[in-house]
């Protein structure tokens, strides 16, 4: 059952900036450089942008700050903040706004300087009132408790979690844009400093600077740009909670619902997907999302990722840029799942380019497994 939005919008430009360390730059500087890169990729100018889709870790009105910085006066703005999933969520609102004629050129953009500014994950949100007294370390404690529960219920092992990080590094080693490209073994992950049992520091995403941007237009003019268009075939969201203590089942995320509806909207199934780009803030994320999105059964995610099965040359290409674990993680990673999925389809992936990718999946996660957003992207062949 596809929706009437299937294939109505297309990504015609992607860009990024400040990967790794963006010395001397503010988060908004990195945001603006990313916007310029994506617009350059699309052969467009900032003055062409009339729809802005943005949130940042700074300020309470980041989209307004971004528009002001860029010197644009957008006629449509979406600054919905659902954490790192926001940027996948914007694919839906941008498609709706474009299709309704509320804007003609949609710019989705993000930037962060969290590594050089503070050296740790920056969060704009205060700890929830009923959790704060116990000093959980956000977001690690939340994901650690999800991992502990998965291990308890399904026998998932620390070795299997480690293999997610090892696979991500193996992809990153081929990607010159990735921040961490050194060798990484299962023993390295297991032997690294424990930060929140059962997760070591190598089970956790990087802390880097970086920004990303995406330019979208209506499908009817998508072929008038320099790069091959990448169509949004389906996108769907579901949110289940805000505080980790309120998560009903620590082993099942709302990706089950967002994924099912995104697949239905696109009219495809998991076995059709050639590249899977998941928000891997922690190694447990990849396992949870592979299960919930239907790539394997619930509880079998550990076995599914074991021994290089999602690494280069494995059974399913997952996080082909190296992911948030090894490529880039500037506070919120969601936009990079979309950028890598689009580049795999266009054929200009920065690392390993898979052959003849027509269908790719991007999945964003926000909060503490709270907000789940899934998008299915496709080439011209999939329309």
């Amino acid at each position: 059952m596809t929706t009437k939005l299937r294939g109505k919008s297309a990504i015609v430009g992607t860009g990024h900036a400040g990967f790794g360390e963006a010395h001397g730059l503010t988060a908004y500087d990195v945001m603006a450089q990313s916007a310029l890169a994506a617009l350059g990729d699309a052969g467009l100018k900032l003055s062409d942008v009339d729809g802005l889709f943005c949130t940042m870790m700074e300020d309470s009105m980041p989209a307004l700050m971004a528009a002001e910085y860029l010197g644009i006066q957008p006629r449509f703005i979406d600054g919905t903040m659902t954490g790192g999933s926001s940027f996948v969520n914007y694919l839906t609102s941008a498609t709706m706004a474009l299709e309704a004629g509320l804007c003609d050129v949609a710019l989705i953009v993000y930037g962060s300087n969290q590594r050089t500014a503070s050296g740790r994950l920056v969060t704009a949100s205060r700890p929830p009132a009923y959790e704060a007294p116990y000093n959980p370390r956000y977001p690690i404690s939340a994901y650690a408790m999800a991992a502990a529960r998965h291990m308890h219920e399904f026998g998932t092992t620390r070795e299997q979690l480690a293999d997610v990080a090892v696979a991500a590094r193996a992809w990153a080693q081929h990607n010159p844009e990735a921040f961490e490209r050194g060798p990484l073994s299962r023993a390295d992950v297991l032997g690294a400093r424990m930060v929140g049992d059962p997760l070591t520091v190598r089970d956790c995403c990087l802390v880097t600077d970086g920004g990303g941007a995406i330019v979208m237009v209506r499908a009817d003019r998508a072929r008038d740009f320099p790069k091959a268009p990448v169509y949004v075939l389906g996108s769907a969201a579901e949110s289940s909670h805000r505080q980790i203590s309120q998560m009903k089942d620590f082993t099942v995320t709302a990706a089950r619902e967002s994924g099912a509806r995104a697949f239905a909207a696109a009219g495809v199934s998991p076995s059709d997907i050639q590249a899977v780009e998941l928000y891997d803030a922690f190694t447990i994320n990849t396992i949870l999302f592979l299960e919930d999105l239907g790539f394997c059964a619930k509880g079998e995610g550990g076995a599914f990722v074991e021994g290089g099965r999602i690494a280069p040359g494995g059974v399913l290409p997952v996080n082909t840029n190296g992911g948030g674990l090894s490529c880039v993680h500037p506070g919120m990673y969601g936009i990079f799942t979309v950028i890598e999925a689009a580049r795999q389809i266009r054929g200009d992936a920065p690392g390993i380019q898979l052959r003849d990718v027509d269908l790719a999946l991007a999945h964003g996660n926000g909060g503490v497994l709270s907000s789940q957003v899934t998008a299915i992207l496709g080439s011209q062949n999939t329309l």
Partner: protein
Amino acid sequence: MPDATGPDQIFQRALTNGEIMLPRCDDCGAYHFFPRVLCPHCHGTAISWHPASGKGRVHTTTVVRQKPERGGDYNVCVVELEEGVRMMSRVEGIAPGDIVIDMAVTAFVGGAEGQPAVLFKPAEV
């Protein structure tokens, strides 16, 4: 001090008096936590307060690793109470690494970050 009127005030005031009170919906009979002005299960607004039994089980748990000079490792967990609600807390009186999922625990009012808070200790067998 004026009487506590809001749900958060009622909960916090009880803690200050050494009591753990839980909100329960008069319409559907289900408990909920955190306190709020409506029942998240049936959306009814008739809420009454009942003393917690204090019996619970560790639903999931982690150890926050921290250098000794900064206070050392400590536990963060989510406990499911007999009443069916869950809350974040920590288990005291046992090494943080020895706390396991499904462990039976008993609630008490202790202090966290300088304010009264619900804490747990291993249940006596």
